[in-house]
């Protein structure tokens, strides 16, 4: 029997706003399958986003949803999680929202290791505003504000998360659709701040400016650059040139923030 996605979608809220060929819907389906696999209680699950195309995702989901201001998802979500540590808190957003205007909240959520999962849909561009370069846009790429090629070097978002202290970091792509739910489910099960970066496409504002002739070509590009971490172990530096590692990139156990704060309460009340 086909998987029933509609069970998790709010009645009457589709169609979504995403353009034909955008990978965001693939990621949303992956998130839905992960929620289903883990038998999560949607009444007890908050999905929090900022601003941008990816940040419209929570509105479609039949959960407790919070579409905040640009860049602020991690900080709002921290408030939700601190107030109700028993809730599942999932953040969704794009590369610009999460690593430019929201960069500070992002790295500090990583540092605190608060038990939430952040799904970053990285399409390397500000799509909603019409295709300005983001901190994830490759050097040299064309965007509406880099007409002569992007002079900025990009962030490696996964490395940024690891460096800032996230205790679970994974990367997938919109092409590798069947892997997305598994990465997200593992991230949600991990106790601590988990980051899942999904390399995505934006045919409308990125593809057409950067010589991708079709959505299929963009998807094939994601397929070609992705190398599973296991496979990469056997490859030379030369072979890994231009490739991007996928799968679980980093995992460690470290005290979780809301549990640590529960100890603060115990200490305060013992005095």
């Amino acid at each position: 029997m086909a998987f029933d996605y509609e069970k998790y979608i709010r009645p009457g809220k589709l169609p979504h706003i995403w353009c034909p060929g955008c990978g965001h819907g693939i990621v949303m389906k992956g998130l839905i399958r992960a929620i289903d696999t883990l038998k999560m209680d949607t009444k007890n699950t908050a999905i929090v986003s900022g601003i941008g195309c990816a940040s419209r995702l929570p509105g479609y989901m039949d959960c407790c949803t919070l579409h905040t201001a640009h860049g602020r998802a991690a900080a709002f979500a921290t408030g939700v999680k601190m107030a109700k540590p028993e809730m599942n808190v999932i953040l969704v957003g794009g590369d610009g929202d999460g690593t430019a205007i929201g960069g500070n909240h992002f790295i500090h959520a990583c540092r605190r290791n608060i038990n939430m999962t952040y799904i970053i849909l990285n399409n390397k561009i500000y799509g909603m505003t019409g295709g300005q370069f983001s901190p994830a846009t490759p050097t040299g790429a064309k965007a509406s504000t880099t007409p002569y090629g992007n002079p900025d070097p990009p962030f490696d978002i996964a490395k940024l998360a690891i460096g800032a202290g996230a205790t679970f970091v994974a990367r997938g792509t919109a092409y590798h659709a069947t892997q997305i739910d598994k990465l997200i489910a593992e991230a949600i099960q991990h106790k601590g701040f988990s980051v899942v970066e999904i390399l995505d496409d934006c045919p409308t504002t990125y593809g057409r400016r950067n010589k991708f002739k079709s959505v299929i070509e963009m998807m094939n590009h994601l397929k070609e650059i992705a190398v599973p971490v296991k496979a990469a172990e056997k490859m030379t530096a030369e072979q890994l040139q231009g490739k991007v590692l996928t799968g679980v990139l980093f995992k460690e156990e470290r005290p979780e923030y809301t549990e640590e704060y529960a100890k603060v309460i115990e200490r305060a009340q013992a005095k």
Partner: protein
Amino acid sequence: MSKKVAFLQGNEAAAHGAIYAGCNFFAGYPITPSTEVAEVCSVELPKVGGKFIQMEDEIGAMAAILGASLAGSKVLTSTSGPGLSLKQELIGYGCIAEIPCVVFNVMRGGPSTGMPTGPSQSDVMSAKWGTHGDHPAICLVPASVQETYEEVIRAFNLSEKYRTPVMVMPDEIVAHMRERIVFPEPGEIEIVPRKTPTVPPEQYKPYDTSFGDVPPLAAYGTGYKFHVTGLNKMQDGFPTTKAEIVQAEEERQVRKVNANVDDIVTFEEYLLDDAEVVVVAYGSTSRSARYAVNAAREQGIKAGMFRIKTFWPFPDKQIKALAQKAKGFIVPEMNLGMAALEIERNVQGKAPVLGIFRVDGEPINPDQIVAKIKEVK
């Protein structure tokens, strides 16, 4: 049994008042001259099972309290001038999404870094006009340590009752001076609870106006699944650009405060019955004004004071009534004329409005006010 007393700073009193009001979540960021509020909350909140978090910046602190409020907490943040500027976008978010929260802002000199340790009253306009767009504004301006404690409690009550951010703005003098405070007994001051839904989850809409201008607000994690956004929204919480809905919702959000000014606006009338010269003052400046009014009376001048306790909504009705008989208004304030503009708007040219505006980090002293009172013919 005698009541518990203490010798506290305004900032310390604010934190204790918040806890009396049922505050169980504080998020903040260090900033002079309001940091003591955060420090006391970090000590006291966990004792009562509440949560304190120091966020990465002012914006993050504002975001965290809004998130915690949606999860059912009663929330507070504290800041000062530059931090208030940073918080403004999300104060607007709290207004449009209708999320109860209290923002305690200690007024220091500005703009920008200004004089971090100097007193000021120059944020009162920011309380209403700081965030973009039309929105309701409630701002309380206490003048003593005791009043700071009580007004923080009232701020929580108003915030829950009207489902909107409420600001408490003492000047730095009120925030840092120490005075005797008498704590109320538990139950002595009424605590207004949040109006929560009476309908089952499947019928719940977060902005359901069939329950009036202030719709009930469910908490995340209580069985109610609902959507919250900063976009203009419909009654079910989802975004819309439909002209008639946006117009009606914007008007309701402002109306829920402006139609209830008599419930919200508080003030003190001091020797006003026969007053010919009315000093309108607020915060620490009102303490000098009271002294000045007494001094003027001793010299045979019929002076009185109207003390603003609720700056927003502004006491329009009361000032308009005073303008019918007063020969002149004196407005001392630690800015270059903010309340004075509101008073002129209400006096409508019926009497002169003379300002004493000071932005040098020094308080306005009674002699200055007495001298100005004598200028009224």
